[in-house]
């Protein structure tokens, strides 16, 4: 097939999400909307302490409370569900403690689930939870880096709280720093935050003892991963576990982990013989949804007198929870930072030291843009500081150091393969969009009036669409291959099932576009279904900016196979050569003359109902499944740049966002509109992380903010309009040439704002390097409080 067929419309068009009409009508179906006869509800007693021994649990009053069906502690379900350990074979030095679904004998973080109460209603379950009396013996908590390094081990068997330590090294940094014209250094503190999906984590588990089967509806990104986990940990044959992820109300990575309170719902359903539902309330979400970030990073950069970066050193203390997250492990964020600092630049001397430290706080895992925002903020923060030190314009300093077209492909000092990144093209475009000279003039003019505005640029690199070598090679049962099923119905309509899932990204539309393009039918003739581990071809779901890259490629292959089958059948009927035929607008046509030979519907109808029309050696195959896995690459690297223009009020410490620009290279764009909206949404999550969002723990390891009144998320009034554009450098690792897009906005927003704030603060000769940049922290930086 020629490229004309591969990339003809509707590929490249602004197709809207096929889920949108039902969601707009209030007719979506989220997990909590799924009915189940005899449903029961679980509520959890959670640990009020960061670290404590469970001496005794008295639940007599709870057992006899109205509506209560079952009360179960961690010890009581020990035999019903295996525990797990978040290790990763690619990081053999990573040590991790075994984690049970509910705490046994000891709690290790504030919010850890301890006792499950199942009742006829959630309210009755919560009432009964209140009646449970636990005798605790408080243990000293590990709630900061220093205690983690010097205090007692949370898990004595691990021999300390360092879960993983590594040094990534290239060249000779010591010599380079000794010879440097300028060295800039910064201590960064990136606060802990979380994903905050608007739909909380929700699971409905329905175990059927008659056939030892488990049907789970779950608000989740990865149905096949859950099928595997439930099968292995609960001891149910895998083909009898079915996980359905219906409409999912936002996920952002937090819904591709295993949470103990979720798998416990499955255990309880099996014990009770009834469907059991768990919905995290908002406080539980803040306490127990996976968290992210929490890094103390000291970094320095050496430059010569021409402004060339000669060396970078990074030291990252990565503060995770008491356990390494399962099944992926918690290592990725630290590892990506250690490998991606300095990534956009030509430099050869690099040293990154990473220590992943266990502490008594909620677990850290993978939330939208893992490590990338921090690596970019560190690099670009140092670069801007160097620009001041060298008195070189920050744009010029970037240009002098960017990797250029002729440098690719290369393996970075951090050990990552870069196929081709478009730093200069992205910078050129963003400068055009933002009209920097005008902004600079305005900034100068206003400074004289006591108005402090800042301009910040942030170049970023992101690693998308993880290949099978990373998790498969790491021993995890996480699929990096994707499958797609495509069938032509007798009417000529197309039904498609994909292994990737859609939590709002719009990947269903992307799959629809690819299939419609290849099969020559209007977009609405293609219906895409996903999110069912029993029915969808096996795949990894959607996370890590992989949907279009991997799911798209599988769809391309499946559609092409079906197209070939259809054309071969048509050729047999028409007694011509299949290569002379094409499918256009629901018709099989003579490719050269466009003359209609037979309609697609007639051909499909004949194939399904009148197969005798074909020669005896032809069996019509009008449904196909194809798969795709990349080979010999860990990631598809993408890149982009963002710019922020904002105003800092030095009296109040408030930051007002004025404008934001993002230029991103996602390779070939399947759907510019939806990619743009992915970037925008991602930017706003990044803005939340840099300005507002923080899971605040007390020195005792108690979460201090568990509501939207004190954990602030971006709302419409504070957000600026965000201008987005694309550069397209297709990857050659696939035919479609797409790169991931879902995390790009988040990857770049944080550093852009941080740099803009520091630019605004420059007249005061102070800097801020702690996120979120709250008014309080800005006033402290200004010495006002």
């Amino acid at each position: 097939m020629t490229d004309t067929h591969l990339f003809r419309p509707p590929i490249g068009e602004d197709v809207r999400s096929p889920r949108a009409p039902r969601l707009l009508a209030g007719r979506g179906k989220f997990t909590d909307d799924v009915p189940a006869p005899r449903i029961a509800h679980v509520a959890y007693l959670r640990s009020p302490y960061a670290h404590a021994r469970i001496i005794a649990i008295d639940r007599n009053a709870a057992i006899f409370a109205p509506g209560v069906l079952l009360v179960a502690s961690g010890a009581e379900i020990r035999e019903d569900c295996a525990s797990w350990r978040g290790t990763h074979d690619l990081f053999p030095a990573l040590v991790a403690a075994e984690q049970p679904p509910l705490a046994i004998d000891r709690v290790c973080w504030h919010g850890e689930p301890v006792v499950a109460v199942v009742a006829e209603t959630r309210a009755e379950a919560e009432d009964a939870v209140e009646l449970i009396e636990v005798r605790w013996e408080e243990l000293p908590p590990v709630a900061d880096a220093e205690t983690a390094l010097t205090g007692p081990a949370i898990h004595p068997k691990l021999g300390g709280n360092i879960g993983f330590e590594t040094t990534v090294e290239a060249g000779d940094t010591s010599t380079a720093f000794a010879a440097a014209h300028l060295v800039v250094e910064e201590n960064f503190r990136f606060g802990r935050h979380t994903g905050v999906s608007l739909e909380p984590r929700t699971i409905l588990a329905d175990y059927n003892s008659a056939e030892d089967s488990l049907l789970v509806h779950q608000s989740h990104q990865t149905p096949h991963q859950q099928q595997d986990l439930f099968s292995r940990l609960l001891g149910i044959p895998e083909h009898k576990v079915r996980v359905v992820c219906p409409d999912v109300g936002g996920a952002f990575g937090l819904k591709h982990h295993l949470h103990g309170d979720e798998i416990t719902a499955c255990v309880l359903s099996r014990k009770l013989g009834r469907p059991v539902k768990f919905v995290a309330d908002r406080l539980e979400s803040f306490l127990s949804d996976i968290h992210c970030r929490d890094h103390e990073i000291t970094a320095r950069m050496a430059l010569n007198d021409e402004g060339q970066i000669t060396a970078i050193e990074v030291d990252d203390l990565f503060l995770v929870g008491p356990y390494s997250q399962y099944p992926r492990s918690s290592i990725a964020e630290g590892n990506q930072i250690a490998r991606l600092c300095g990534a956009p630049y030509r430099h050869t001397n690099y040293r990154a030291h990473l220590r992943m430290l266990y502490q008594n706080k909620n677990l850290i895992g993978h939330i939208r843009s893992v490590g990338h925002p921090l690596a970019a903020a560190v690099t670009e923060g140092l670069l801007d500081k160097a620009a001041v030190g060298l008195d070189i314009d920050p744009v010029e300093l970037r240009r002098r150091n960017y990797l250029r077209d002729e440098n690719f492909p290369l393996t970075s000092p951090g050990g990552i393969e870069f196929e081709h990144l478009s730093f200069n093209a992205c910078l050129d475009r963003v400068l055009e969009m933002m009209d920097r000279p005008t902004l600079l003039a305005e900034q100068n003019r206003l400074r004289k009036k006591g108005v402090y505005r800042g301009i910040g640029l942030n170049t970023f690199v992101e690693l998308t669409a993880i290949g099978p070598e990373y998790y498969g090679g790491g021993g995890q049962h996480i699929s990096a291959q994707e499958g797609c099923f495509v069938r032509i119905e007798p009417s000529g309509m197309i039904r498609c099932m994909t292994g990737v899932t859609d939590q709002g990204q719009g990947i269903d539309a992307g799959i629809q576009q690819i299939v419609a393009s290849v099969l020559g039918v209007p977009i609405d003739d293609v219906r895409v279904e996903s999110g069912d581990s029993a029915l969808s071809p096996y795949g990894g779901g959607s996370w890590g900016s992989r949907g279009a890259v991997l799911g798209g490629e599988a769809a391309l292959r499946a559609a092409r196979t079906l197209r070939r089958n259809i054309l071969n059948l048509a050729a047999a009927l028409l007694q011509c050569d299949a290569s002379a035929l094409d499918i256009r607008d629901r018709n099989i046509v003579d490719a050269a003359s466009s003359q209609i030979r037979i309609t697609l519907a007639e051909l499909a109808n004949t194939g399904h109902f009148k197969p005798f029309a074909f020669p005896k050696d032809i069996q019509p195959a009008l449904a196909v499944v194809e798969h795709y896995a990349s080979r010999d690459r860990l990631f598809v690297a993408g890149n982009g740049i963002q710019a922020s223009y904002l105003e800092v009020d030095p009296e109040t410490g408030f930051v007002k966002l004025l404008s934001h620009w993002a230029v991103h290279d996602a390779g070939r764009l399947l759907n510019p509109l939806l990619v743009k909206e992915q970037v925008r949404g991602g930017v706003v999550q990044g803005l939340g992380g840099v300005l507002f969002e923080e899971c605040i723990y007390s020195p005792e390891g108690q979460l201090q903010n568990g509501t939207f009144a004190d954990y602030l998320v971006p709302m419409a009034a504070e957000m600026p309009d965000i201008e987005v554009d694309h550069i397209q450098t297709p990857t050659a690792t696939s035919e479609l040439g797409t790169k991931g897009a879902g995390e790009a906005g988040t990857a770049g927003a944080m550093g852009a704002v941080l740099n803009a704030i520091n630019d605004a603060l420059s007249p005061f000769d102070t800097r801020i390097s702690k996120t979120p940049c709250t008014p309080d922290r800005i006033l402290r930086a200004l010495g006002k409080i």
Partner: protein
Amino acid sequence: MTDALEITLTVNGMPVTRRVPMRLNLVDFLRHELDLTGSHVGCEHGACGACSVVVNGGVVRGCLMFAVQADGTIVETIEGASESGRLKPLQDAFHNHAALQCGFCTPGMLLTASALLAQNPSPDREAIREAISGNLCRCTGYQAIVDAIETAAALEQNDD
């Protein structure tokens, strides 16, 4: 102490009588008693707006009102508002602007936007942002929603 009361109200044009626990909030009543699952529960403390429904003509948080407080009222949910056709211009504009992703906030956004346009038929962007500032959307970053409401307002103005 009685812990349940009988209430009668009109929901999406239909009379409804149910005996409900005193502590049941309105959105749970609508979702679980009446199976009107288009209103969503996001925070249960009145901060996110996912549970927005219309009571006696005004948009309220379904999680901050008890079902018993809705006795005698006229309630409209996204299902009723959608089926009546009154949201069509907004729904079309949201669709065209891709002003929704996961769709969980969307029913509340639409009802809030509709209330804004009823009060102010040609709001500027700032007024739109202000009006929806009590509705959390975690996916879109709001701009497409603002665009959509602006478009719907312009269309309705042209129709008048």
